[in-house]
């Protein structure tokens, strides 16, 4: 089953067209990460998936239905999006913040129920925030605050979650914390995850599939081992790098080379032989 599908999607701002007819299908229950250099359009594509950016042409389908045929509330019940820089509201407790994730499920006719409270409690527990639930969000550490945002989109209880750089501004242990949480949500609830990450090795470690975007095209698409090759890294990032197996997890690890440490060609050859060994 396809959760999110882009069909001949044309996207851009003002005069600048970023994507001119891109196609992409995201399978249900998978963790997909969009990667690429700054300005390659990762966030633009994610925003279009989350109806925050209207396509110039083409369309996005969510669970088979065109987004533009759905009301914004209907979308919000099936898809949650955590933008890159949400604003932290004044004088608001962590619980109150997470409660706002229930907004799409409420209306004048269906106000707050004990079910909602249970869902909020579960989201707080899943993100390890139960103990600080009554604290003002403005007093949280960076890692706690980021988990509070994740808890908010969890409380939205949608089959699909989009995360735009959920680990930015976090130190390594907090980055791992957030990504492990994402992986666990995916494993336990079968939630489809599409996210944008900058750290390639972390993206490889926590994703089923990587999609490399470059100059308005999908440059590479597949499992982390299929995608993270020196050629792709050279084209997408202008980066000379070697890719080795992470000794702990076995996922690909990107090691940037010093410019003088050998030609690109030799590193490609070395890497491909290594890959063949691994795959064989």
């Amino acid at each position, binding site marked *: 089953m396809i959760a999110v599908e882009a069909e001949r999607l044309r996207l851009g701002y003002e005069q600048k067209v970023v994507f001119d007819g891109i196609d992409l299908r995201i399978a249900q229950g998978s963790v997909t990460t969009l990667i690429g250099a700054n300005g390659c359009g990762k966030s633009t594509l994610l925003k279009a998936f989350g109806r925050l950016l209207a396509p110039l042409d083409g369309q996005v389908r969510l669970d088979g239905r065109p987004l533009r045929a759905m009301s914004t509330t209907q979308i919000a019940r099936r898809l949650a999006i*955590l933008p890159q820089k949400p604003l932290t509201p004044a004088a608001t407790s962590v619980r109150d913040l997470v409660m706002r994730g229930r907004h799409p499920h409420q209306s004048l006719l269906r106000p707050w129920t004990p079910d909602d409270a249970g869902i909020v409690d579960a989201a707080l527990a899943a993100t390890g925030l139960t103990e600080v639930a009554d604290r003002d969000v403005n007093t949280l550490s960076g890692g706690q605050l980021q988990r509070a945002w994740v808890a908010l989109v969890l409380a939205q209880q949608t089959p699909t979650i989009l995360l735009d750089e959920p680990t930015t501004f976090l130190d390594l242990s907090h980055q791992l914390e957030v990504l492990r949480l994402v992986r666990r949500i995916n494993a336990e609830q079968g939630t489809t995850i599409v996210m944008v990450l900058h750290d390639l090795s972390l993206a490889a470690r926590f994703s089923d599939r990587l999609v490399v975007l470059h100059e308005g095209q999908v440059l590479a698409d597949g499992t982390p081992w299929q995608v993270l090759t020196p050629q792709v890294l050279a084209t997408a990032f202008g980066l000379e790098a070697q890719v080795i197996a992470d000794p702990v997890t076995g996922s690909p690890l990107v090691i940037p080379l010093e410019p003088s440490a050998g030609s690109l060609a030799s590193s490609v050859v070395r890497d491909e032989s290594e890959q063949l060994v691994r795959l064989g």
Partner: protein
Amino acid sequence: MLAAVASLMLGSNLISAGQVVHALIDSAADLDAIVWGSRVPRTVLGIVVGFALGVAGAVMQGQTRNPLADPGIFGVSAGASLAVVVGVYVLRVNSPLVTSALALVGAVVASVVVFAIATAGRGLASPVPLAIAGTAVSALLGAITSFLVLTDQTTLAAYRIWVVGSLSGRNLDGTAAMVCLVAVGLVLAGLNAGSLNNLALGTELARGLGESLWRARLVGLAAITFLTAGAVSLAGPIGFIGLTAPHLARALVGGDHRRLLPASGLVGVLALLGADVIGRLIGGQAEVAVGVVLATLGGVVFVVIVRRAKLVAL
């Protein structure tokens, strides 16, 4: 939260008690006439206007995410003032009821113009176009008002009395319509509370939660216009309540607009009635208009708030 509301209620009761005591001291002749003829309408007016301004200020700050925003930013007060001045200048209006009606029309027209200018450009994602359009329109209307007032003695005399902002010398006849206006504004503000909570998370996350920006802005602006227009037509442009009441209320009940809006309204009532009583007491026979008291005390109180509780950034 209940405790906060209860304490605010007790506060306004204390004020009422003070008014009655004051009435007792004042009235050598006929106590009933003073209490019912002047004090009661005045208190009712104070409650309506104070509540309207407090709520309008909280909606305004939520919409613009600017802790220094007050309802004047959308050009509502400036529009009302200009309409009153034009009424006096051109039509030689002097009935309070017609003045109120003119103020209302001016307020509504100004906010519609501001909304139209702000939405003509990039749209409603950012609160900045609304604030800029409002400030620009206010400045323009203010300039025209000054021009008319300075060129005509009669207009200046009439405008001078109206612009100070006062609860006295108004009776309850004809105010029913304005009170209905405030009531409509309160309903709209109530409907906007959930949207304001979402907008506080940034427009992208708000939209992700299923918020329609267009509806959120429109309902919010309509609420501010109805509330401010009603209050301005009833009592003239009264400053500071819209700016300070939300801050005090936020410190008391937190940032959730479903609690913040009513709390801000109650703080507004408390402030307006308090300032009115002080104005009566310190003025002796003359009475100091409530607008003047608020401008004087409000400034001091605001400085104290800023110095003591670090101002909550929105």
